[in-house]
């Protein structure tokens, strides 16, 4: 048996296949290896800091410098791991399984960790000055059962991008404000022919929950009502039916929108100048500026309910409870949350501030203006509910099926709702 199993693993390393190798580690991994390096009482000699890679250029350099600064101040070494988004969930899960969690973790979810009792609350590891500096909405978004566990690390907001040339050529005078305008504009752009696409709709597994949230909210629907999941509400069925119609009746989207991802699909097409409209965010703007190929505008989402709503995304820092690490972790977090540090990094990555001091410092940035303006009308997905961690994955794996020819929006939403209710129990 051992022999059979070692063969594929050797093969993995031949092909330098990391994910499969990691999988083998996860599933075969030594779950009972000795507990991690933090000491018995007293100060740990080092802390493990796990950060998600937002960009090749900025993430590691910033955190590396911060870690060096921290070591200089405290004498505590930092074991820094910068991990790409594709594999961070799985790597962190492996660490927890092996009883070797990080001391500080950056992720897009936090409440499951809080529910499992793995985290320090803000009272325990943040100085009062830091806690008071968080913007209220983002502090709310990091709260589980009345306590702050998910410390806001950065934020972003989506905005509506349009290709000026294509809209002009199609005779669309201004970007659409309502859904009816939107359908008209998309039809006109699509009618230009020559492979031009009205609207790029990415409902593939990568980030379907983001695209879906924005359409859902702009039709008056929501994930939950009154604390209970409401994924298959009439409003939401109507919204998903509308999206399916964009693809199959109006035919104003790219081919197979349920099987298109954001990064290598919708954004790629928009950057190539093939698409009239797409929902983007500031990193897309940075890429468009760097390439200089598309004349684009950024505006608010078209809406069916009067006030346009956008999606705000908040990512978190978490501090794991480990014997003797509280003081070391507190000092590390204090260093990151110094206004000059957090603002430097958020600015470099092109994201939005999560602190009052950061908002002041960044308010003069013209490029960020559309997103900063959208922030008051931004809503967050329900990351404060641990069930969300499963609901998100369910939406990613299923909602695209509803917009394929023959797909059934109501049935898809009913199934997600049922699964959410089961998880919530």
């Amino acid at each position, binding site marked *: *048996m*051992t022999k*059979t*199993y070692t*063969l*594929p693993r050797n*093969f993995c390393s*031949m*092909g*330098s*296949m*990391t*994910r*499969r190798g990691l*999988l083998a580690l*996860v*599933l*075969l*991994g*030594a*779950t009972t290896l000795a507990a991690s390096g933090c000491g018995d009482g007293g100060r740990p000699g080092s802390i493990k800091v796990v950060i998600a890679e937002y960009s090749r250029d900025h993430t590691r350099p910033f955190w590396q410098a911060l870690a060096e600064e921290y070591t200089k101040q405290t004498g505590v070494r930092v074991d820094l791991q910068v991990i790409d988004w594709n594999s961070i*969930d*799985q790597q*962190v*899960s*492996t*660490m*927890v*399984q092996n009883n070797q969690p990080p001391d500080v973790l950056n992720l897009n979810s936090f409440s*499951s*960790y809080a529910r499992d009792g*793995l985290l320090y609350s803000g009272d325990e590891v943040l100085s009062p000055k830091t806690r008071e500096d968080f913007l209220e909405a983002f502090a709310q978004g990091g709260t589980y059962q009345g306590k702050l566990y998910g410390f806001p690390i950065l934020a972003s907001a989506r905005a509506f991008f349009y290709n000026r040339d294509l809209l002009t050529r199609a005779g669309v005078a201004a970007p659409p404000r309502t859904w009816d305008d939107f359908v008209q504009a998309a039809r006109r752009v699509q009618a230009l022919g020559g*492979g031009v696409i009205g609207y790029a709709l990415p*409902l*593939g*597994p*990568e980030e*379907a929950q983001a695209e879906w949230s924005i359409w859902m909210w702009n039709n008056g629907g929501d994930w939950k009502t009154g604390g209970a999941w409401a994924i298959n509400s009439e409003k939401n069925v109507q919204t998903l039916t509308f999206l399916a119609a964009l693809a199959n009746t109006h035919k104003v989207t*790219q*081919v*197979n929108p*349920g*099987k*298109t*991802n954001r990064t*290598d*699909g919708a954004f790629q*097409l928009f950057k*190539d100048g*093939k698409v009239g409209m797409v929902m983007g965010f500031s990193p897309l703007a940075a890429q468009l500026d760097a390439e200089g190929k598309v004349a684009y505008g950024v505006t608010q989402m078209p809406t069916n309910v009067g006030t346009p709503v956008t999606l705000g995304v908040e990512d978190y820092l978490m501090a794991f409870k480990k014997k003797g690490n509280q003081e070391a972790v507190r000092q590390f977090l204090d260093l990151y949350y110094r206004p000059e540090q957090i603002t430097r990094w958020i600015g470099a990555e092109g994201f939005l501030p999560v602190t009052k001091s950061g908002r002041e410092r960044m308010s003069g940035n013209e490029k960020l203006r559309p997103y900063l303006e959208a922030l008051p009308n931004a809503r967050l997905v329900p990351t404060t509910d641990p069930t969300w*961690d*499963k609901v998100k*994955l369910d939406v*990613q*794996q*299923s*909602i*695209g*099926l509803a917009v394929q020819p023959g797909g059934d929006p109501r049935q898809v939403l009913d199934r997600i709702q049922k699964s959410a209710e089961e*998880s919530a129990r």
Partner: protein
Amino acid sequence: MYPAIELVRASFGRYSVTGLHQGTVGLRNYARLLGLEALPAVVGNTAVWVALVVAITLVLSLGLAQLLNESFPGRRLVRWALIVPWAASLIMTSKLFVWIYDYYFGLLNHLLAAAGRAPIDWLGDDRTVMGAMIAVGVFVSLPFTTYVLLAGLQTIAGEVYEAARVDGATGWRSYRWITLPLLRPALLVATVLNLIYVFNSFPIVWTLNDRNPGFAHDTMITFMYKIAFKSALRDVGLAAALGVVNVLLILAAVLAYLRAARWREEPA
């Protein structure tokens, strides 16, 4: 042996989304596996994927090995070139093929357009996804298989063919009655190793199928990963149970194949 024990242990466990162990559940994970709606399709995909990739690879490799066994100018170069898809990382190769297959930017659809044909969404159309993945699976399996068979060919002494020629056996008859039987050990090795590699292959199916929601084109290996990390199940224990089933299944398949191969040897 230790990792295998850990896998079995994990398969008896209940885990939180975070990976935290929350006690043991006996065989419940195995029972839940059987209840998964996607399982029959996934098992079917796995059978098609393994059978076709291994069979097509073997047939093509037999031809390639024969070709590389002849002397012709530039043989050394061709032999080296064949190593490339083997040496390249499977992820990079898979990503390259994603762009070859892409509906809007892909080389394949440019060729179709040049031929006046309508484009095809190779990786999105349910009818073409599996075929597209199998083609890549064959492409990356060819080098190894060809080299195993080439090594086998080179152990066949020239005198055997001369003797056969004296007896009037040439061409196809010589290949069918001399080359293939003497190549049997090499074929056996190539088949068994390919069965295991292809069954366990993660990156090709994962990368080429990553735009598609659901589990309609997953094999048991990618399904295992999705159960653990990328679906509403998000359950390491359940995934470990499937991992155990996978190991037993490939073991059984290899044993069955070896038995069948030996069985055929006897009457010969």
